[in-house]
């Protein structure tokens, strides 16, 4: 029963909260939708913390796609042995994990010690940073310490297929039963973090300006055109 709750009900509820929350915020509270940079208030710490953290997160995302979304059979078809995969995952993933943790720790120290940054930070700002730190720390611990000291855990046979099964709406929660505790905590914390996204500054994840490189540099808007477009 607890298996059904954590590996079926909980993921769907959290993701639903995320999607509905995002739609609500986009529709009614778009004025608050921004990447709330504090670079204006402080630059020196940000210079190291922010790029470390953000680039780390981007690489970590790619790593998760490689581990969770792409099936193990794909690697086998390419002739990549399990050992070679884990070698890459532990070193690459470990480095990226350390980048994220180091970056987020620098940003957290900055948030606590720099007066204007701390005073402007809200509960949701601290929550977002601490939640990301927790998820990143468990992930990095798994990658670097658990995988090298306890067992090179093959999550591509359990967590990966379970994760994909969520998208088919046929959750194979039984796969998660024997997953090591630290992995379980990481997954649950991550889904809890997803649910919080619409209510924190993390919404800016969804506004990557992908159109910028292709749009014309100068933008004109017109009252009459605005009406003609029916917006």
């Amino acid at each position: 029963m607890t298996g059904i709750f954590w590996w079926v009900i909980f993921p769907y509820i959290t993701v639903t909260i995320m999607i509905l929350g995002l739609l609500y915020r986009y529709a009614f509270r778009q004025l608050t939708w921004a990447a709330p940079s504090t670079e204006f208030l402080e630059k020196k710490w940000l210079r190291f913390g922010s790029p470390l953290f953000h680039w780390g997160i981007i690489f970590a995302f790619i790593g998760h796609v490689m581990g969770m979304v792409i099936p193990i059979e794909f690697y086998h078809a390419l002739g990549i042995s399990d050992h070679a995969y884990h070698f890459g995952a532990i070193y690459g993933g470990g480095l990226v994990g350390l980048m994220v943790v180091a970056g987020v720790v620098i940003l957290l120290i900055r948030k606590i010690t720099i007066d204007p940054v701390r005073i402007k930070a809200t509960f949701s700002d601290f929550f977002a940073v601490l939640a990301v730190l927790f998820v990143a720390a468990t992930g990095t611990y798994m990658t670097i310490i658990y995988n090298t000291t306890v067992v090179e855990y093959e999550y591509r046979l359990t967590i990966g297929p379970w994760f994909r099964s969520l998208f088919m709406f046929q959750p194979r929660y039984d796969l998660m039963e024997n997953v090591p505790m630290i992995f379980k905590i990481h997954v649950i914390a991550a889904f809890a973090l997803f649910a919080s996204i619409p209510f924190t500054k993390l919404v800016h994840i969804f506004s990557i300006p992908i159109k910028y490189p292709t749009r014309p540099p100068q933008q004109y808007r017109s009252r009459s055109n605005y009406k003609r477009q029916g917006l």
Partner: protein
Amino acid sequence: MRIKAQVAMVMHLDKCIGCHTCSVTCKNTWTNRPGTEYMWFNNVETRPGPGYPKRWEDTDRYKGGWELNNGKLKLRAGGPISKLANIFYNPNMAEMEDFYEPWTYDYDHLIHSPKSDHLPVARPKSQVTGKYMDKPEWGSNWDDDLAGGSEIVPLDPNVEKMQEHIKMEYEKTFMMYLPRICEHCLNPSCVASCPSGALYKRDEDGIVLVDHDACRGWRFCQNGCPYHKVYYNWNTHKAEKCNFCYPRTEAGLPTICSETCVGRIRYIGVVLYDADKVKEAASVEDPQDLYEAQLSCFLDPFDPKVQSEAREAGINDAWLEAAKESPVYKMAMKWKIALPLHPEYRTMPMVWYVPPLSPIMNHITNEDELNTDGYIPAVDQMRIPVEYLASILAADDKEVVRKVLLKLSAMRVYMRGKTVGGVDEFKQSELVKQANTSPEEIEEMARLLGIAKYDERYVIPTGRREMDDDLHYKQGTCSLEDLAPQEGLHPTFGYMKAREKNYESG
């Protein structure tokens, strides 16, 4: 040809007394909210001096505006790809220290402090942190009237590159005021810098605005603008900038800074320009050709061909009439006495400046004995070095500034001659020839510059409304309506589309 109309401003610096009334009324109107305390959409700088924010003209540091790269116009701070690579930390962005930490005073203490032997003091309190400040050390006009003198003046990037030594002795130094608002450029680099496409130029009047719903706070506009006139609101995390008081100009009223200018230095009018020419004009090789190139974009409002094409482009008769009467057209394009601020940034700025005359140094002891042509060399010996003015207004082209000063001197000599005699001498003089002017033009100029009637300073056609479907509904509604999304549900979700249909059917 793609004709567009642009509302623009001229500031006649000779008449600016540096009273900051424009800044104060602007602040009271637009930037008195949390997060905007440090912003001055309008500020007045004493020159020479570092300005606000400190050393904003240092394009090597802030990387604002455009540059020519292998003949192609590129943002100095880098194109979209390098911007996206720097999105997590913008190395060129100014921080609060470059502006100043805004503060207020603990006035309450003056009223409520208990009886004591000493007078109570209102201590400065930061408006960012709310904490007491030890002492404020910089502000938007900290160096007003050359305060700080020889310590502060050398920070001016224009002074740094000057060959001529600037004298700082009280009797010999010089000073001028430079009021600045957003330039509402023809080729705005802030718009091109915005990853979200939130900044835009209005088709109807060329005003550059920020769509706060679309702004995601990527903050490239802040240093993308070489004039540093786009500000980052640290409270809402959105960009804010001068909006040319469009709710006023749409109603035919001048901007609040112009309306309240006690020196009557500001002029607002409409000019017509060819939007197809802008990019080419901004891409000329030599920065000193940019002024002429920019002038070539403007169209003669008296030309019947221009008029008919403008009508086709949707510009109505009220705007065409206003373009003919436009003080900006007269001063900047016809008489050529107003110059763009730092044309070398290649943004094609649309706030123009009539450079100030200043007392003539050492050369003339008794002006009564000076003959008319004696004023020609005098232009080069004015207290404000032509080199300095050229650095600000003409991409270091002294000849451009010299011509303007000569024309303004000619006006002064002629108008003086009308009272004390010497008009006939003036008409024959070398001065009138070199200044490339005539008594008729001078009379017209003197009226606009000297008498400066309200109706002649501000020729502002009202914003167009005839394309609105339901003018009856529009009565009394906010001017933002239909331009900005409505309050409540975002238009993406179809609410406004539904309303639009209702309009059409009913």
